[in-house]
């Protein structure tokens, strides 16, 4: 039982490992102190020209609160504790009620000046701070959500969390406020959490914590938004400024010196990406949203030497991209292949059943080009000879086949006349008429065992001497049924 469990969960990062092997080892006390203090974080990020919400007022004491010039505040603003955790103590105001000393909250309720003062006093007394220590109240700019993400969230500001380790962005998620979360992007309050494909910045799986459950951290996968008037599918949303955000996240890691960091970024309609906060102990729910374990990803990048931010992003995209393809596979039931894929070509006479069982079967791993413009797959005669079809090629060449044919009819007539004789060689399955380097030719066809993306099969290959084939193997339509071809890497 235990080995089965541990095998299934080996990619998952748990709290114990996160704290022991990542937070403790890679986040120094001084770096954590920066992340735990929003004012210091803003100051540090500002030096590197990273945008954070503009601070209107800092209230450090009751005396300062007493002399606060309320009229100098803009209509909408946010009040938050400097050392608050988990979004506690944050209040958003959308506007001021006309003719009254009261401000409107996202749910439409108003809060009087006296209540706001009391809330700020509670912040100062440390009600929301770590360890209940005395705190500072921050009055800052309210982010105006980017219209693309606004349509998926209920009132509040959606944000994107990117976890970076060793200067590589390893995982990302989009958090969408819901009615249940009261407009906050806090997962435990009921916000939706959506995984992001690191390569494309497109959303993949989504989940949320179901309602009245007393079982904490119990997640449920969902497909659409939950409580909007017109619920929308959550899969396939292109996150705006994705590459810029990856860059910002890595810059945050660089300046805060947090080896293991979670960067929360919101997208302002006018300013673009704005860093909300950096987290020295980012939560682990991101793994559920991405349906992937963090442990494996962190171990993968642990010993890499990353030369620059651009390099880090490239590594991330190469290593952790592709979830969106798996998503497509999940929906369509079809596997996604790149336009050029590495495939295994097995030696002549390979028993297909042995390939499925044993790994040590003689093969060549070659690049194959996926070409839906041809029906039968092609193999370069050089490769075919190498994997054991040399005698068959020699046998075929003995027949002094015309170099080219005027038309397909002429080629077919030739095939009809000589195929039986040529196919006496058991390696030649049949003859095929093809266009090779702009000329109609007749070539031998071999049955070859290949492995494309974990699927082993016997495929017909026309052996060709063409100089124009892009790779030693070209897979044609006959062998591409059940696959979708991703052409994004064509040029």
């Amino acid at each position: 039982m235990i080995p089965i469990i541990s095998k299934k969960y080996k990619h998952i990062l748990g709290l114990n490992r996160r704290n022991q092997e990542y937070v403790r080892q890679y986040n120094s006390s001084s770096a954590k102190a920066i992340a735990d203090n929003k004012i210091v974080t803003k100051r540090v990020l500002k030096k590197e020209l990273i945008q954070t919400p503009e601070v209107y007022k800092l209230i450090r004491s009751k005396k300062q609160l007493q002399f606060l010039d309320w009229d100098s505040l803009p209509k909408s603003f946010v009040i938050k504790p400097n050392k608050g955790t988990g979004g506690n103590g944050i209040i958003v105001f959308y506007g001021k009620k006309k003719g009254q000393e009261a401000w409107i909250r996202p749910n439409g309720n108003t809060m009087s000046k006296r209540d706001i003062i009391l809330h700020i006093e509670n912040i100062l007394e440390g009600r929301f701070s770590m360890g209940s220590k005395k705190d500072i109240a921050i009055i800052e700019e309210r982010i105006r959500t980017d219209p693309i993400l606004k349509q998926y969230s209920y009132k509040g500001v959606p944000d994107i969390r990117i976890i970076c380790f060793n200067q590589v962005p390893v995982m990302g998620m989009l958090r969408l406020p819901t009615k249940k979360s009261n407009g906050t992007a806090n997962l435990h309050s009921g916000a939706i959490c959506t995984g992001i494909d690191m390569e494309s910045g497109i959303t993949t799986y989504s989940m949320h914590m179901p309602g009245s459950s007393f079982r904490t951290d119990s997640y449920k996968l969902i497909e659409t938004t939950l409580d909007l008037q017109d619920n929308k599918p959550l899969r396939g949303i292109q996150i705006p400024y994705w590459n810029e955000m990856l860059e910002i996240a890595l810059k945050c890691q660089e300046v805060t010196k947090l080896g293991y960091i979670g960067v929360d970024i919101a997208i302002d309609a006018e300013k673009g990406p704005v860093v909300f906060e950096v987290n020295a102990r980012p939560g682990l729910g991101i793994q559920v949203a991405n349906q992937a374990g963090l442990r494996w990803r962190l171990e993968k990048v642990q010993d890499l030497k990353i030369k620059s931010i651009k390099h880090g992003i490239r590594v991330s995209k190469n290593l952790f991209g592709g979830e969106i393809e798996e998503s497509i596979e999940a929906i369509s039931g079809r596997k996604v292949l790149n336009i050029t894929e590495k495939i295994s070509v097995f030696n002549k006479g390979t028993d297909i059943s042995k390939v499925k069982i044993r790994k040590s079967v003689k093969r060549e791993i070659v690049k194959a080009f996926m070409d839906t413009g041809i029906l039968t797959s092609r193999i370069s005669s050089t490769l075919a000879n190498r994997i054991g079809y040399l005698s068959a090629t020699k046998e075929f060449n003995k027949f002094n086949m015309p170099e080219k044919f005027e038309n397909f009819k002429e080629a077919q007539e030739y095939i009809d006349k000589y195929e039986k004789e040529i196919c006496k060689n058991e390696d030649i399955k049949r003859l095929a008429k093809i266009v090779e380097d702009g000329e109609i030719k007749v070539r031998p066809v071999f049955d070859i065992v290949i492995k494309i993306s974990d699927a082993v099969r016997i495929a017909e290959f026309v052996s060709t001497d063409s100089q124009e084939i892009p790779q030693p193997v070209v897979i044609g339509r006959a062998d591409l049924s059940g696959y979708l071809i991703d052409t994004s890497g064509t040029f």
Partner: protein
Amino acid sequence: MFETSKLTEWILSNGVSETVLELLIAVCILATVVSIARYIFDSKTYGIYAPILLAIAYSYTGLKYGLAITLVVILTSLLSFSVLNKIRMHYITRIATNYTVLAMVLILFFILIERFGLGLENMANIPPLAFISIAALSDFFIKQYLKKSLQGSLITLFGTIFVAVIGWFVITREIISEYMLNNLWILPLLTILNILLGRFTGLRLKDYLRFRITAKDDSNN
């Protein structure tokens, strides 16, 4: 039952009373129980102090009486707080008011027990310090309630009581306490166990439940 060890005899003859020694051993056991509960099972508690205090208080009150007092403390705190929440007042004064209400309700509770029994007739024999220790739970409960949510605080409360009850069960078994008292070499062993727990990097039991929809044989990695 067990032969008194020479080390125990020596400690007892050097100014340490048996009660104090038993209590200190109980603290070691309870601290280890809390560690196991946290790092193996991921049981949330109000820190390490609250479950230890509660378990020791239960060992003085007995589980039945202890749980009855806990119930009164929590219900009172919940009620008083839901009322106090509607009044605009400062944080510390709110907690102070809650304590005052709690004290009054406990007085009323004792009178009711005296008058009607309610199956808790021996309440008068319980040491007052045990009451106070259980009443302190109100502070932990309310702080968490204010900072996070009622649901979050209740979950932590149940976790704390659960761990305290397990702790109570362990320290009140005569065979265990007597064995521990006469085999003090176990205390360094508990230290080693705690160090090992502190270095444990495996998944907690709750992680398995939490990530069950993520863990697949053929994962997205």
